[in-house]
């Protein structure tokens, strides 16, 4: 790795991997079409595009996880052959998937070394060497990893750091991360980028898939945009020049024809008139288990209230409480009919292998049953009406799995809103959803509020909260610590979210060092 090349070798040495006109079909659709793209050492390369634009597919080709139908993948100077993840890892390319692949009952250390266990004589596992090495990697990353804690007890930020450490443990030189910040809060995301920047300065190549333009703006050195399987462009980001114009170019390349759909939905709701709007949800001094303490909250008809906070600070308990999964251990909750958009659409919101018809009516079969026999005609009619409202593909026999993340979420949102609930609880409604679908979902939530529902949006995405909510509650360590107007600054909200008392007083055990506090 440190071998010195002759003069002129520098350019090729910088290039860690390259695709040459790769094409990959998935069934009848072409997921990636003739893409040629290079990934270099020392830079953070952002890949942007709508859901289903082929970003993940392209990177999986690079990481050897699937083989191209035509075209070639080069790692270093030679072709990736055989085209397997094992070979890719052996040659220094590692990919961190969107849904982590850690073993929950193993400790962090065991996960890091899994599959690359350092063995002493006679194949005896040399745990001490492994631990030393893992510690060194964590130091290089500038993070602490609780090596002896079981992964199931760790938060999402820790899990991600473990995944990255895992890649480095295998001597990865090109680290590919698929939507690493989709599940992270802003401070966690900043911490991640601090880590990634360190790696890049050390000469690693970093590839990041992201939907978030502000991340591209702040952290990327190079940005590639994909659209419908094709690479629109790859260009370096020149921070000395007009960054806004460059980001605008990226946005419009992502959106293509849909660019900048101007609609009145972007306009925020009018400030709630204090007098109007009855209370549809009143929580008083509610405790839920060990997750939520003396939470009080009033939600009025027609308003959208945001709840901001780092995952694991009581959001889950709040959603479960409002969904009726758990009862409060203290205090009272009075709520109108409630519909919940769950945080994890793949495991809780949808039956992925069932048809859209079933998914649009999940849990509502009672309404179509007479003596237990379903009225298929009216069931079909209702499903059809809903799928058309949702804007998702209208073939009711398709499975939910076959849809992109954005369209999946549209199904979930449409179902929740079709129930004419008084209270709508939306947990991370646009997490991992592309720009266009996010706009549609925001519009749906706004129009639900206009129709007179009270909407509670629980999100780690401050931009989303600012855009939708008329006031933002901060949930930290199970308590509502503050209520802020949407005009509050990132700094202010971030500090409160982390439970940091004063601006210059970061806690020693702050989980996200490097946060923009």
């Amino acid at each position, binding site marked *: 790795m440190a071998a010195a090349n002759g003069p002129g070798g520098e350019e090729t040495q910088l290039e860690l991997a390259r695709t040459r006109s790769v094409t990959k079909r998935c069934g009848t659709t072409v997921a990636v079409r003739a893409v040629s793209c290079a990934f270099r050492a020392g830079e953070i390369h952002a890949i942007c595009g709508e859901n289903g634009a082929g970003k993940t597919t392209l990177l999986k080709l690079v990481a050897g996880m699937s083989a191209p139908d035509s075209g070639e993948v080069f790692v270093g100077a030679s072709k990736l052959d055989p085209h397997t993840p094992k070979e890719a890892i052996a040659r220094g390319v590692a990919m961190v998937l969107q849904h982590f692949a850690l073993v929950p009952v193993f400790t962090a250390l065991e996960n890091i070394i899994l599959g690359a266990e350092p063995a002493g004589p006679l194949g005896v596992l040399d745990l001490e060497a492994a631990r030393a090495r893992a510690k060194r990697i964590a130091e290089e990353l500038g993070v602490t990893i609780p090596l002896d804690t079981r992964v199931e007890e760790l938060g999402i930020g820790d899990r991600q750091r473990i995944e990255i450490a895992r890649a480095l443990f295998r001597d990865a030189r090109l680290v590919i991360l698929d939507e690493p910040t989709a599940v992270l809060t802003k401070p966690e995301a900043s911490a991640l980028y601090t880590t990634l920047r360190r790696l890049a300065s050390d000469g690693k190549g970093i590839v990041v898939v992201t939907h978030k333009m502000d991340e591209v703006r702040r952290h990327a050195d190079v940005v590639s945009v994909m659209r419908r399987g094709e690479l629109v462009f790859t260009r370096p980001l020149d921070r000395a020049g007009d960054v806004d114009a460059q980001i605008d170019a990226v946005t419009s390349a992502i959106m293509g024809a849909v660019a900048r759909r101007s609609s009145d939905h972007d306009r925020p709701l009018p400030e709630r008139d204090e007098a109007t709007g009855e209370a549809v949800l009143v929580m008083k001094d509610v405790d839920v288990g060990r997750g939520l303490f003396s939470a009080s909250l009033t939600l009025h008809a027609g308003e959208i209230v945001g709840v901001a906070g780092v995952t694991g600070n009581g959001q889950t308990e709040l959603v479960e409480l409002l969904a009726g999964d758990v009862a409060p251990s203290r205090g009272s909750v009075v709520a109108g009919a409630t519909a919940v958009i769950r945080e994890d659409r793949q495991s809780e919101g949808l039956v992925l292998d069932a048809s859209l018809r079933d998914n649009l009516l999940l849990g509502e*079969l009672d309404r179509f049953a007479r003596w237990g026999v379903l009225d298929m005609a009216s069931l079909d009619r209702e499903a059809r009406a809903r799928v058309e409202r949702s804007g998702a593909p209208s073939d009711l026999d398709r499975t939910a799995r076959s849809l992109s993340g954005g369209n999946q979420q549209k199904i979930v949102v449409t179902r929740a809103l079709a129930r004419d609930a008084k209270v709508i609880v939306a947990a991370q409604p646009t997490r991992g959803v592309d720009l266009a679908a996010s706009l549609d979902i925001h519009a749906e939530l706004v129009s639900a509020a206009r129709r007179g529902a009270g909407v509670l949006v629980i999100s780690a995405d401050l931009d989303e909260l600012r855009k939708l909510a008329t006031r933002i509650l901060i949930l930290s360590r199970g308590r509502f610590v503050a209520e802020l107007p949407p005009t509050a600054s990132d700094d202010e909200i971030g500090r409160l979210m982390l439970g940091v008392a004063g601006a210059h007083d970061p806690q020693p055990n702050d989980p996200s060092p490097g946060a923009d506090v």
Partner: protein
Amino acid sequence: MPAVAGVAAGWLAFCLLVWAYGASPRDMAVLLAEGTWGTTYGAGQVLFKATPLLFTGLAVDLALRAGLFNIGAEGQLAVASLAAGVVGSRLPASTPFVIALPVTVAAAMAAGASWAAVPALLKGRLGAHEVISTIMMNRIAEGLVGLLVASGLGLTGTVRTPDVVPGARMPRLDAVFPAFRGSAASFAIVLAVIATALVMIAHQRSRFGRELGLIGLNPRAMAAEKVPVKRRLEQALIASGALAGAASLGTVLGYKGYFEEGLGAGAGFGGVAVALLGRGRFWGLVLAALLFGTLQQGGLALNAHVPKELMDVLQGVVICAVALADARLRDVVTSAVVRPIAKPATGAGGAGVT
């Protein structure tokens, strides 16, 4: 596709085994065909063997849809068969057909259902894994049935119940179609096919059936939508037990006319095979039951030349091949086996790890 792989692998294994035994695969295949579908008697015997298999296959399939692996059809059927023999024989001798048969069948199904209710409630209330509890219930059923037959429910000095009343007997096929003369096939096969069709329709068109299928695919999402998942799982296992109990139509009521210890043994495990091969489809289940019925009857036809146990081996080979050829099935089987080991701490108690 998996079915093709299964049958192909079965055929290959048949040739190998027969050849290893020193017989000619070709001759044996001809003998097998003649002994089963070659004559109307043989065909009747295949239908007779397939009848309980179709009922138990349907039973296992219903549970499988909800993501439950009911290995307990064997015990459920044993208890149900005893109930059929006892209730059928205690009715007044003059009870008319339209009352006697339904009452007897209802008693059998209720017995099968209540036997399945034990693992069902253990599952729903305490989270006990159904594979383990249904297997254990099989052993208990075996012992209990023997005990009951020996101590009062059977005729003294025998291991059988008295004859059921004539009205509770399922008419033989040869009563209407003389061609089947001599075979033990009864109209129970017709009922089995009708039951299969009805249950398949119910999976699409009834609230219960549709919810079961969705629960099988993702119980968490269904629970999140406030479908009573645990209760549905209990109900599925109980319904499965009732269907397994209905298999006694083909054995107790259609064949012997009384229950004796061991009657119908093996049909419960055979049902697992039928369900795995039948893949949740009407024709799949019917053809799978016929295939395994053919193998059983064929084993008897070949018994003079090769041991009939060879057919049991074939049955196993077919199932393994099907399971290997189908990813989703592999998942079901793996999770049924791995789940209780890998995830001990879900449900009550939870995180108590020291």
